[in-house]
C-alpha cells in the first residue's frame, strides 16, 4: 500500500475510507467493473472493526482502546466530566475554492473515555473495552505481566489445588501469539448465505479456505448438549428417543414447505407454534434456541424463516449449516481487498481523510483532502458510520451495543472423540428478558489458536456492560477464579470483555452528507453476514446502477496483458503492509512503463501462495473450498 499517493493517482472515481466487510465488498465490486478505487485507512491493519489479531496484536489493540477508568479515583460527592480527545475542529473553511465546503472527520472512531455504566454507553460508539482480567491460572504461574493500569484485578485468591494437567502459561501464549487469529467480530458463514453465494459468484473464494462448523451445541440444565440437526446427527443422537427422532425429522422435513397451520399462528410467538406441534420439551428447546436461534417472543413467521434458512444450509458442505474461514473472519474483507487490488484498486494504510470538499450547488463531494494535505478528486466516497460525527447523523437513532468476550481455554466445552471440533453453542437467557448468548468455540485446526487451546467467542446484545452480560455464562460453563466446583470444565487461560456498536442499529440513510457519500454501518450482531453484504450491494447499485454486482472474476489465463491500455493489474500491493514511502512513490511513478512487471509480480506471488497452501495441507484436514456446485 501507499502511504503517500503518487501524483498520477490523485484522480479517483471512488474513495473508500476504512475497510470493513461492506466497504471491502463495495471496493472489490467497483474495481471489478473498472472503477478506479482508492482505499484509505487510518489504521495500520486491514479490516477495521472486522479485523483479526494475533495474540500480541490484540494486546496492543487493547492498550490502544483500553478505557482508562479512573473512576476509582473519585471520592464521595465528586463527579467526573470527560473531555473529548479529538482535537480536530468539526468544521473548517478551506480557502482554496469558494464554492467548496470542507467537512472534517474525527481522526478515528470515537472511543468512550468515561464511566463504563450503561448510560454512558448510549452516547458512545466504536469499540469499548471494559474488562480484561488476567485469570488465576496465569497468576499462579507467576508469569503474567502486571495488569495494566486501570484494569480491575480478579479478586479471587490463587487456588493451590491445581489440576494435574500442565497448564499453558501466559508466557507460552505470548510466545505462540502468532498462532492466534482473534476476530473482533464473531460470526459464521451460512453455507447458502449471501456471503458464500457472493464468494462463489465473484470467484473471490479462491483466496480463502474454509472449515465446517462440526457441531451445534446448546447449554441446558447446566449441561452442554449436542443439538441433532442433520439426518446423521438425529440418527446418532443418544439423548433422543426413537419417537422424538421421528417427530424431529418430520418437523424438519415438513417445515420446509409452508402450511396453512402456520398462517394461523401469524403474529403469535414461534414458541406457541412449536408447542402446538406436540414435540416435547427437548425438541422445542432445540428448535427454538439452536435451530431458529429465536427468543420466546419471536413471531412465528420469523422463527420459521430462520429455521428454514438453517435447514437449507444443511448438507451443502457438511452436517451443519455453517462454515468458518481458516485464519479467522478477518480473512474475508482481505479477500475482497485482494480482488480489488487485482483489478487496480490502491490501498493506503495509516492514511486518513482530513476533509471532504463539497460543491455547494450540487451538494456533491468533488474531492477529499487527506491527512497529508493532498487533494484527491473523486466521484464517490464510502465511509464507515464511525467516521461521521454525531451532528450529521439522522436524529433519534439510539446506538445499540454488542457485548463480546474472547476466551482462550484449555479444553472444549463438550469433549468428544475428536479434539478438532468447531462448535456453535447457543445459551438461552437464564432469566426472562436476559440476553441469549451465542458462543463459538474454535479449535487449533481453524488456524486461530495455538495447539492445546481453544478460542472461544461470546456474543450477545448488550443489556448492560459486556462483563455483566457475559461473565455469568463464562462462570457457569468454564473454570474461572469466580466459579466454584467446576471440575471437568475447561479452564479459562485468558479473557477479554468488550462492547462494540451494533451495526444493525445504525441508520445508513438520512445523514446530512453530500449525495455521493455513502455510509456503511460497521459489524452487526447477527450470526450471518447478510447485513453487510446487503448494504454493500445497495451502495454498489447506488454508485453504478447499470453494472453487475461482482460478476465472476476471469481466470488468470484469460486476462490479456498486452493490450494498449495502461492499467495492468497492479499485483497484490495490498498484501504488503507498511511499505516504505519511497518505494510506494517509485512504483507509482514507474507505473506507466512497468506494466509487465505488475503481471510478473502477481504470478510470482501466486506461486508462493500455492506453496504456502501445500504447507498448510499437512496441518489442516477437511478444509472446504467453495465450489459453485458440487
Amino acid at each position, binding site marked *: 500500500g501507499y502511504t503517500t499517493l503518487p501524483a498520477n493517482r490523485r484522480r479517483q472515481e471512488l474513495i473508500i475510507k476504512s475497510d470493513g466487510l461492506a466497504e471491502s465488498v463495495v471496493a472489490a465490486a467497483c474495481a471489478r467493473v473498472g472503477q478506479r478505487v482508492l482505499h484509505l485507512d487510518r489504521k495500520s491493519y486491514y479490516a477495521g472493526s472486522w479485523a483479526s489479531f494475533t495474540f500480541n496484536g490484540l494486546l496492543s489493540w487493547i492498550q490502544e482502546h483500553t478505557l482508562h477508568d479512573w473512576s476509582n479515583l473519585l471520592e464521595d460527592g465528586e463527579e467526573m466530566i470527560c473531555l473529548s480527545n479529538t482535537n480536530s475542529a468539526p468544521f473548517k473553511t478551506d480557502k482554496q475554492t469558494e464554492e467548496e465546503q470542507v467537512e472534517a472527520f474525527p481522526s478515528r472512531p470515537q472511543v468512550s473515555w468515561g464511566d463504563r455504566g450503561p448510560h454512558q454507553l448510549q452516547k458512545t460508539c466504536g469499540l469499548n473495552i471494559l474488562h480484561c482480567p488476567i485469570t488465576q491460572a496465569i497468576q499462579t504461574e507467576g508469569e503474567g505481566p502486571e495488569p495494566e493500569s486501570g484494569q480491575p484485578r480478579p479478586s479471587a485468591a490463587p487456588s493451590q489445588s491445581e489440576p494435574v494437567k500442565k497448564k499453558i502459561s501466559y508466557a507460552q501464549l505470548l510466545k505462540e501469539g502468532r498462532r492466534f487469529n482473534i476476530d473482533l467480530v464473531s460470526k459464521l458463514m451460512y453455507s447458502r448465505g449471501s456471503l458464500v453465494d457472493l464468494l462463489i459468484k465473484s470467484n473471490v473464494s479462491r483466496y480463502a479456505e474454509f472449515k465446517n462448523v462440526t457441531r451445534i451445541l446448546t447449554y441446558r440444565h447446566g449441561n452442554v448438549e449436542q443439538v441433532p440437526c442433520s*439426518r446423521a446427527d438425529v440418527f446418532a443422537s443418544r439423548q433422543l428417543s*426413537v419417537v422424538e427422532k421421528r417427530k424431529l425429522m418430520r418437523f424438519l422435513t415438513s417445515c420446509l414447505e409452508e402450511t396453512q397451520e402456520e398462517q394461523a399462528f401469524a403474529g403469535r410467538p414461534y414458541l406457541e407454534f412449536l408447542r402446538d406441534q406436540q414435540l416435547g420439551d427437548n425438541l422445542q428447546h432445540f428448535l427454538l434456541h439452536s435451530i431458529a436461534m429465536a427468543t420466546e417472543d419471536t413471531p412465528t413467521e420469523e422463527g420459521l424463516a430462520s429455521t428454514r434458512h438453517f435447514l437449507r444450509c444443511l448438507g451443502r458442505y457438511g452436517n451443519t449449516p455453517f462454515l468458518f474461514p481458516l485464519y479467522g473472519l478477518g480473512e474475508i474483507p482481505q479477500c475482497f481487498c485482494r480482488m480489488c487490488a487485482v483489478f*487496480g484498486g490502491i490501498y493506503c494504510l495509516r492514511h486518513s481523510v482530513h476533509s471532504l470538499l463539497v460543491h455547494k450547488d450540487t451538494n456533491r463531494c468533488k474531492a477529499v483532502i487527506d491527512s497529508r494535505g493532498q487533494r484527491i478528486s473523486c466521484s464517490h466516497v464510502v465511509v464507515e458510520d464511525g467516521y461521521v460525527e454525531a451532528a450529521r447523523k439522522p436524529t433519534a437513532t439510539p446506538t445499540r451495543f454488542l457485548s463480546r468476550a474472547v476466551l482462550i481455554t484449555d479444553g472444549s466445552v463438550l469433549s468428544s472423540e475428536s479434539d478438532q471440533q468447531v462448535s456453535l453453542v447457543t445459551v438461552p437467557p437464564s432469566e426472562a428478558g436476559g440476553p441469549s448468548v451465542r458462543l463459538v468455540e474454535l479449535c487449533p485446526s481453524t488456524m486461530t489458536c495455538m495447539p492445546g487451546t481453544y478460542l472461544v467467542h461470546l456474543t450477545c446484545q448488550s443489556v448492560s456492560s459486556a462483563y455483566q452480560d457475559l461473565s455469568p455464562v463464562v462462570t457457569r460453563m468454564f473454570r474461572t477464579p469466580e466459579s466454584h466446583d467446576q471440575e471437568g470444565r475447561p479452564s479459562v487461560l485468558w479473557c477479554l470483555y468488550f462492547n462494540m456498536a451494533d451495526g444493525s442499529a445504525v441508520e445508513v440513510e438520512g445523514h446530512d452528507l453530500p449525495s455521493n457519500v455513502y455510509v456503511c454501518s460497521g459489524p452487526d450482531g447477527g450470526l450471518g453476514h447478510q447485513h453487510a453484504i446487503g448494504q454493500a450491494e445497495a451502495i454498489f447499485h447506488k454508485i453504478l446502477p447499470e453494472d453487475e454486482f461482482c460478476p465472476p472474476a476471469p481466470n488468470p489465463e484469460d486476462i490479456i496483458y498486452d493490450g494498449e*491500455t495502461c492499467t495492468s493489474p497492479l499485483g497484490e500491493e495490498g498484501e504488503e503492509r507498511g511499505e516504505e514511502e519511497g518505494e510506494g512513490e517509485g512504483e507509482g511513478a514507474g507505473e506507466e512503463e512497468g506494466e509487465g512487471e505488475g503481471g510478473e509480480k502477481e504470478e510470482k506471488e501466486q506461486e508462493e501462495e500455492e506453496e504456502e497452501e501445500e504447507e498448510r495441507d499437512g496441518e489442516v484436514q477437511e478444509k472446504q473450498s467453495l465450489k459453485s456446485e458440487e
Partner: protein
Amino acid sequence: MHGRVKIKSTAQQEEEKRKEREKKLKIYVAARDACFSKRREGVWDDEALQLTQQLLSSNPDFATLWNYRREILLHLETVREEDELQKIYEAELSFLESCLKMNPKSYGSWHHRGWVSARLPRPDWARELSLCDRCLSLDDRNFHCWDYRRMVVKMSGVPVDQELQFTDRLIGSNFSNYSSWHYRSTLLPLLHPESPEPPSPCRQPPQSSPPPSPQTHSHRVCEEQLLKEYELVQNAFFTDPNDQSAWFYYRWLLGRAEREEMISCVYVSREEERVVVAFSRPVNAQSVGLMLVLDGQPQRVEWRSVHPHFKHSPVWICDLPPGTISDITNEHNLTVHWTEKHTHRDCALYTGRNESWCRDSATDQELFRSELSVEKTSVLQSELQSCNQLQELEPLNKWCLLTIILLMRALDPLGYEKETLAHFQTLKEVDSMRSAYYSDLCSKFMIENTILKMEYAEVRVFSISDKKLTTLCHLDQLLLVTHINLSSNLLQRLPPQFAMLQCLEVLEADNNCIENLEGLYHLPKLEEVYLKNNKISKLADLQPLVSCPKLKHLDLRGNPITETTNIQSELAELLPSVTDLLL
C-alpha cells in the same frame, strides 16, 4: 471502458479450447495406434509401458490397454529381479492412484489394482487399506472400493472387530448405505455367533474361517448383539422411514435360519404301487443319491418329478415293480435314504391299509410361525411394539407396514390374521405400483394359515374360498390333500406345481379366472373337477386332464369354451372317462 481488465471473449476461449482438444486427440490416437501395433508384434518393453500409461491416465476405462499392460508386467516378471519388480509394481500402484482420481469408479483401474496387489512381492496392505478409507470417505457408496476393501481385508487379515467399527463409522455418517449394512451382516456372525461356544478369536484372520453365509443357521448372531443391532437399525428407520437400506438390514436381522435339509414326507399307495417323496427344498432326485429300500431290499426304481417342467422339485415319484406291495394282507416297511445328506425316512404300510405316509407336518416344523425368526417371542413382541409406534406416526409408510405384517406372522399368524389383511389393504393403496406383489404375498400368507388350520383339524381337506387369492404356493405341503376348495378367488391358472397334490380326488375351483390347467397332470386319484365360471376357452386348455385316468365329473359351465360348436362331442372324444360333463 478505460481501466477495465481485458478478458478474452468466449468465442476466443472456445476456439482455444477446441484447438487444444484437437491437439490432444491427435496425440491420443497416435499413442493408441502405436500401442496396438506393438501388441500385435508381441513387444513387451518399457516404451509400451510408457505409452499405455499415457493413454490410461487420461482414459482409465480402456480395458484392452490394461490387458496389454498385464502382459508386459507378466513378461517382466520372467526377466527382472525381485527388487526391481517390487519397484515396478509400486510405481504401478501410484500410477493407479492417479487413474482412480480421474475416475474413482473405473472397473479397469480397480481390477488392475487388485491384480497388482496380489502379485506384489512385498505387499503393503496397510497402505491399501488407508487408500480404501480415503476413497470411501469421499464416496461411501463406491462399490468398487468396497469390493477391493474386502479383498484387502481378506489378504491382510484385518481383525473382524476393526472392520465392524469401520461400518459403525460409515453408518454413523450416512446410514443410507447398503454396502455398510451388508458388510455388517457378514461380519456379525463371525464376531458374535449365536452358538453358546465362545466367540471366535477376533485376531483370527478371516481366511482361516471363510465368512459363512449369514443364512446358515449355525452362524446366526447371538441374542445380546442382536438386541444392539435392533436398536441401531431402529434409530435409522425412525430417523428416515423411507430409507430402504435400513429396512432391508432389519429384515435380515429378523430373518430365520434356513430350513434343515431333510425328507419331509414319504407316501406309499398300494393301489397305484408307487412311492411319493417330499423334500424340504427342491432337489434333483436323479442326482442326489436317493435310495429306496423295501423290506430290507434296495429297489431299482426310476424317480420322476411331478411335472416334466421340473428338473428340481420338492416332490418326486417312483413306481414300484408290479406286484411288490399289491397284496393287502402283507405288511411292508419302506425306507428312503438321501445318501448325500446322510438322512432317511421310514414308512410302514400295514396289513389292510391301502396307503400310508410318514411325515413332519408344517406345524411340527414350525414352518410358517418361524418364517421370520428364531428369536424369543418377547423380543419379537417388543420389536412389534416399536414398529406399531412408528406406524402411528407414519401411518402410510410401506416399509413399516410390511415389517409389521412380517412380525405379526412370526408371532402368531392366525391370531393376527385380521390385522394382517387390513395392513395389506393399506399397503396396496399407498404403494399401488406394487399391489400385485402384495396380493401374491397376502395369498401366500392366507394359504399358510389355511394349512395350519387344516393340520390342527387333522383333516385332508383344504378349503380356502373367497380370500382374493392371486397365486398358489406351498403346494408341496398339500401332498396328502384329497379335497381342495379354491372357489371364488382371483386365480388365473393351476400351475405345474399343482401336480404335487398326488392324493387329490376333488377339485373345486369355481368362480376364478382360470384359463390354464397345466397343473392337473397325472393326478392318479382325481375324480371330480369343478371349474364353473372361469376363462377356459379352448379345447387345448383341457389337454392336461387327459393324463388323469379317474376323472369322471367335469363342470365347465360359464366358461367361454362352452360357446364352441361341437364342444360336447369333442370333449367326449378327448376325455372318454368323463361321465358327468356340465356345460
